[in-house]
């Protein structure tokens, strides 16, 4: 049975939840899991990888990898893949994962299943499912002509259960393979938000036209702070310039699948539903009882957002502190 390579992403040395999900899926399959981690981090990441199921940890600790460069990442990861010789590679459909792994697949002459929501590993074989046509269909992805099977998973799709993964692990330190780079990262402009990206958030509070104007988002920020949620928006308010495009959920924005999605003043145009209908629980708050969003919602409230949201924020505060 071949190894599973998990490309583990971290934020300032802390493993991302999406990577923990992958480690557990690999561990639960019964295959050996080799985790690869790039960039600067503390030593505790090794034990975190270990506890979450990795029996081999491959470290490439080099500041050159603290920001993402497709060429540098590809050259170094391919060199490590050559040493591990995995049958399967699991990575997140994150900003880095989505950009990097198609390039890796092309260079290794192998297949990739992207944007997947479920995973079925059996020995060296794997199938995955993914939504298609804006979530209007779900398909099973099968590999052929693929010496290594690469699967990119959306965040928040796989369970994290407590596992008995704390075996001792082999730690392999790699050094940077420098290549002639034709790509240079000149500057990184940090977003103002310290919150999780929409694609990784477990709770999202999203606003639309019903908020009347840009300042209406302030009460959503307050609600999101109480819930530890990330704030999203509909296309209409992004196009009106109320908030940046990075916050757009839907067809020409982000596709999200949190546990809880609260849509405030969003009518539910098909372009918006395409990006969020995979959410586990959807709450719709809208003054129009006929808004299409209610057809996709789990719970619905017809009412004035400006009256309901501040009260809801207080109610969550009480509920979460008890």
């Amino acid at each position, binding site marked *: 049975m071949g190894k599973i390579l998990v490309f583990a992403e971290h934020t300032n040395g802390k493993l991302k939840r999406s990577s923990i999900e992958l480690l557990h899926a690999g561990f639960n399959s019964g295959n050996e899991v080799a985790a690869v981690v790039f960039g600067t981090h503390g030593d505790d990441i090794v034990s975190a990888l270990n506890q979450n199921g990795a029996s081999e940890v491959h470290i490439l600790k080099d500041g050159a990898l603290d*920001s*993402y460069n497709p*060429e540098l990442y590809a050259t170094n990861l391919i060199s490590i893949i050559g040493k591990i010789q995995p049958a399967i590679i699991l990575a997140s459909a*994150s*900003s880095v994962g*989505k*950009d*990097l792994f*198609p390039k890796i697949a*092309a260079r290794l002459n192998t297949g*990739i299943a*992207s944007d997947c929501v479920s995973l079925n590993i059996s020995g060296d074989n794997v199938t995955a499912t993914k*939504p298609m046509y*804006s*979530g*209007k*269909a*779900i*398909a099973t992805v*099968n*590999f*052929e*002509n693929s010496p290594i099977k690469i699967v990119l998973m959306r965040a928040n799709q796989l369970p994290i259960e407590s596992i008995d993964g704390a075996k001792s692990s082999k730690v392999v330190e790699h050094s940077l393979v420098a290549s002639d780079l034709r*790509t240079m*990262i000149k*500057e*990184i*402009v*940090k*977003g*103002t*938000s310290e919150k999780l*990206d929409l694609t*990784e958030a477990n*709770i999202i509070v999203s606003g639309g036209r019903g908020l009347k104007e840009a300042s209406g988002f302030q009460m959503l920020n307050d609600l999101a702070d109480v819930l530890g949620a990330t704030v999203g928006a509909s296309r209409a308010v992004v196009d009106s310039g109320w908030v940046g*495009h*990075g*916050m*757009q959920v839907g*067809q020409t924005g982000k596709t999200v699948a949190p546990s*809880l999605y609260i849509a405030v003043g969003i009518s539910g145009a098909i*372009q918006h539903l395409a990006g969020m209908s995979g959410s*586990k*629980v959807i*709450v719709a708050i809208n003054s129009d009882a006929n808004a299409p969003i*209610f*057809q996709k*919602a*789990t*719970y*619905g*409230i017809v009412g004035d957002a400006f*009256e309901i949201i501040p*009260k*809801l924020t*207080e*109610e*969550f505060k009480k*509920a*979460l502190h008890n």
Partner: protein
Amino acid sequence: MKIFVCIKQVPDTETKIKITPDLKGIDSAGIKWVINPYDEYAIEEALKLRESQPGSQVWVLTVGPKSRANDSLRTALAMGADEAIVINADGLDSFATAKALAEVIRTEGGAQVIFSGKLAIDDNAASVPQMMAEFLNIPHTTVVSKFHLAAENIVVERDTEGGSKEVVQMMAPAVVAANKGLNLPRYASLPGIMKAKKKTIKEIEYSTLNLPAADQKVSYTGMTLPAEKPAVKMITGDSVAQVSELVKMLRDEAKVL
């Protein structure tokens, strides 16, 4: 300077999807096909680049069944593209598509910049631009919301996570995959539409490229419609009662708090 734009036809978002009896795809009858929305940003940026670089040409390229691919190529020509090529094929995956595109771009003499959308909204694979760059052995940047060419250097802004951006410099030639926000795509003008009708679209049969059958790496089976959601529970009463009931439901019934 030669500029290539790679585009794809996708079912319009509003179109109803019917799955074929073999569960491997969708019934194409009755589907309204449109240019993938992200590819429209790619076309617009190519046209803007041509305007700033006199003597340049914009070539549009697609892979697909030629009958429907030609419609989207005509639209791109009507927007202002100079030449159009279709690689006639059906059912290729991202890998085989990227290989075919790279092959044709190479045999047509290459390009200084190759634009495409960051992903196609039918399969959300977000793979073809990076694979094509790899097959052409040139750099790429995806999710691009700003583009600038200065001599041999392409400088772009890439949208990453949480509203952050990276400023990336690449040596030309390179592949640039467009995000929303890059520009506002123009509409085709009436003279543009008339002119586009008279242009010849070059057709290349996929089989004549002699690419390996093993370029096909993934296939879809067991396609289903998503499970029906239970009917919405409407929470009534005054706003105080509504919020307290909602929080109770989320905590005790849905268990998401």
